Structures are given as C-alpha cells and as structure tokens.
C-alpha cells in the first residue's frame, strides 16, 4: 500500500503463507517465532544481519515480487539449560477471592526484587498498559472474582481494564523471569508462568469468572484474551 503511494518497501515476514498470498514487492522470510521479526533479543550482530538481508532486497532489480528466505535460526527459540525461574513453584491454589488476594499479593511482593533487577538490567519495562501500579493489582483482579465490575479512568470498560491488566501481569512476570543469567526461551517463561505461579492460575480463574459473567464485553474479552489456548487447563 505504501509502495503504490510512492515509497519503496521491504518486509521481514514471519508468516510465509501470508506473504505468498499478499505478494508484497519484497519480503524476507525469517524462521523466527511470532512476535520476533528480528529474531534474538540483545544480539545486535544477529539483528544487523537480518536488517541488512531485508534492506538489501531494495537494491535488487529482479522484482516484483522478491520473496527471499533467511537461513539463520534464532538460537533463543530453544530452551536454555540452567535457567532458573525467579520463584519456587506456588503451592497455594486459592478458591475464595480473599485467598486469591493474599496469595497474589504475597507472590507480587516476592517477585518484586527480580522485576526491579530486570528493569535495571534491560533499562526498560513494558508494564504500563493497565494504568495501575502493581500494589493495586490484587484488589482489582479479585474484585472480578467476587462478581464486581471495577474499572479505571484509562479504559472505557471493565473488560478492557482487566484485559490490559492481564497483559501487564504477564509482562511483569516475563521480565522478572529474565532478570538474571542466560535468557530463557519464551516457552520456558510461559510454562513457568502458567503452570507454577499464583498469577497464572489467577488469570485462568479470571477467565472462568469472565465467561460466566452477565457482562457481554467481559465474557468475550475474558474468553479470548486472558489465557492463550495452549495454556488452558485440560478439560
């Protein structure tokens, strides 16, 4: 759409079939996981090679369409031996909202040092969509378990407020999981979060509560956007 309007384009494509269908002027197919067009985090040399391969297509005259394959794999896709999660597996599996509140608050407090270390290490955080500090997360989330529909000024509906808070919770735990040592694979972080933390179990409980809600927005958003399908508990 942009090239038609006058500017040459090149795309780093994670989904080969989609690029084959849309036929952009130039595309570099990369063998990386969804969400990582540049492949490996914090490997400037690796990312530079990907960039030059994609930008290099702009100098070729044998199009349209140029669809090129990038051979190098992302080493961080594979699990990392020796990676340790920042917390031991949670033993608490609460049922009452008040128990969720205390278990989640305690876990957040225990995770805080690793989260702060991660922010020091990487100089950044992607927590912030919810518009609420972590201190308020236990009260806000467990209110939904009790049938409440709280919201915050930053979001139009309770459903969106909770959805973006779920994103922040996942982001905070994901950052804390990377605070020390070698980078875990995405799969290692996800397995730890969904199977071994109070927060992961809480998001599953929030999904269940949302799907049983009379609030249609919450029902839809909760069913689709809190827990990825691969991590839903077996029926």
């Amino acid at each position, binding site marked *: 759409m942009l090239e038609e*309007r*006058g500017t040459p384009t090149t795309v780093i494509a994670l989904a080969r079939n*989609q690029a084959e269908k849309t036929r952009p002027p130039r595309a570099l197919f990369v063998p990386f996981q969804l*969400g990582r067009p540049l492949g490996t985090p914090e490997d400037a040399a690796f990312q530079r090679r990907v*960039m030059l391969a994609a*930008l290099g297509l*702009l100098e070729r005259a044998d199009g349209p369409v140029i669809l090129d394959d990038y051979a190098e794999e992302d080493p961080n896709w594979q699990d990392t031996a020796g990676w340790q999660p920042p917390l031991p597996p949670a033993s608490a599996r609460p049922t009452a909202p008040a128990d969720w509140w205390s278990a989640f608050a305690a876990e957040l407090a225990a995770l805080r040092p690793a989260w702060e270390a991660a922010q020091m290490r990487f100089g950044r955080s*992607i927590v912030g969509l919810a518009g609420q500090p972590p201190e308020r997360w236990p009260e806000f989330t467990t209110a939904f378990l009790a049938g409440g529909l709280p919201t915050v000024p930053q979001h139009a509906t309770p459903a969106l407020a909770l959805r973006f808070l779920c994103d922040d919770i*996942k982001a905070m735990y994901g950052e804390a999981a990377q605070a020390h040592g070698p980078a875990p694979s995405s799969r290692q972080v996800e397995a730890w979060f969904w199977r071994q933390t109070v927060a992961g179990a809480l998001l599953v409980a929030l999904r269940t509560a949302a799907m049983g809600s009379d609030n249609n927005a919450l029902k839809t958003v909760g069913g689709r956007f809190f827990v990825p399908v*691969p991590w839903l508990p077996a029926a």
Partner: protein
Amino acid sequence: MARPEEIPEPTRSAVLNIECPVFETTPFLAGKPLSQRKVAIVSSAALVQRGEAPFPFGSTEARFIPAGVPANALLMSHVSINFDRHGFARDANTAFPLERLRALAAEGMIGSVAETHYTVMGSSDPAGMAAAADQVSGQLKQENVDAVLLTPV
C-alpha cells in the same frame, strides 16, 4: 517463516488459513543505493507510548512514533495474546529495530534514519487502512524517506 509445526494451535490454523487481501497491482519502485536512502520503520505491533491509549480492537489507524522516543516509553497494545512479547520486553529492537537502524546509519550502510516511524494494529483488515496509508505516505514524502522497513509481529 515461523515453522508451522512449532506454532501452537489454534494460532497455527489462524496464521495458515487467514484470509489475505489480494492486491490487483504489484508496484515495484527502483531507488538509490541503500547507502543513500533515508529509512523509516512500520511496525504492526500496535505500539503506544506509555500513558497513551491502547489501540482499540479492529483499529485501522496509523500512529506516528518520533525517532527520539526512548525504548522504555514503548508498550505493545496489540490485541493478540498468541505471539511472543518476552523478546520485545528484553530488547525493543526484537520487534521495533530503531537502534539497529541508527547503527546502520552510523556505519554508512544506509543514508539516514527517518524522523518519524509508524505503527498499526496488525490484526486489522488492511482493506480499511487506505486513509492511514495516505496519512503515512504523506509524512514519508514530507520527510523525503526513500525506503520503508515493515516489521510485522
């Protein structure tokens, strides 16, 4: 590509079976050598600056990201929960390679880095994005940008 067998269901089927727009024309513009081009990035990750409203679901807008924005200010408000964000959390360049682009300019591999970069909600139907494309294109021309690197997530 991301190996289909390594993408968990139902995302795998969604990625493989998605309806894609068919474009009637395939433009292909020649240009200057890379070392003389000014380059902008377009990310599909629905990036927002901290404090800014997330992209609404189905949004067909494009938002501008000034080149001076610090990496710590960028959050990802994409609707999908089925792609990795931990890489982006660790290093923004994993999905939005602005620092890498700056390094290529410093090396002389590209001419320069555009003043403005762009982001859209990648799950939205491109058929509704003509106005956004016009808006982005207008800014690209105003800044004399000669190449766009698209980095869909």
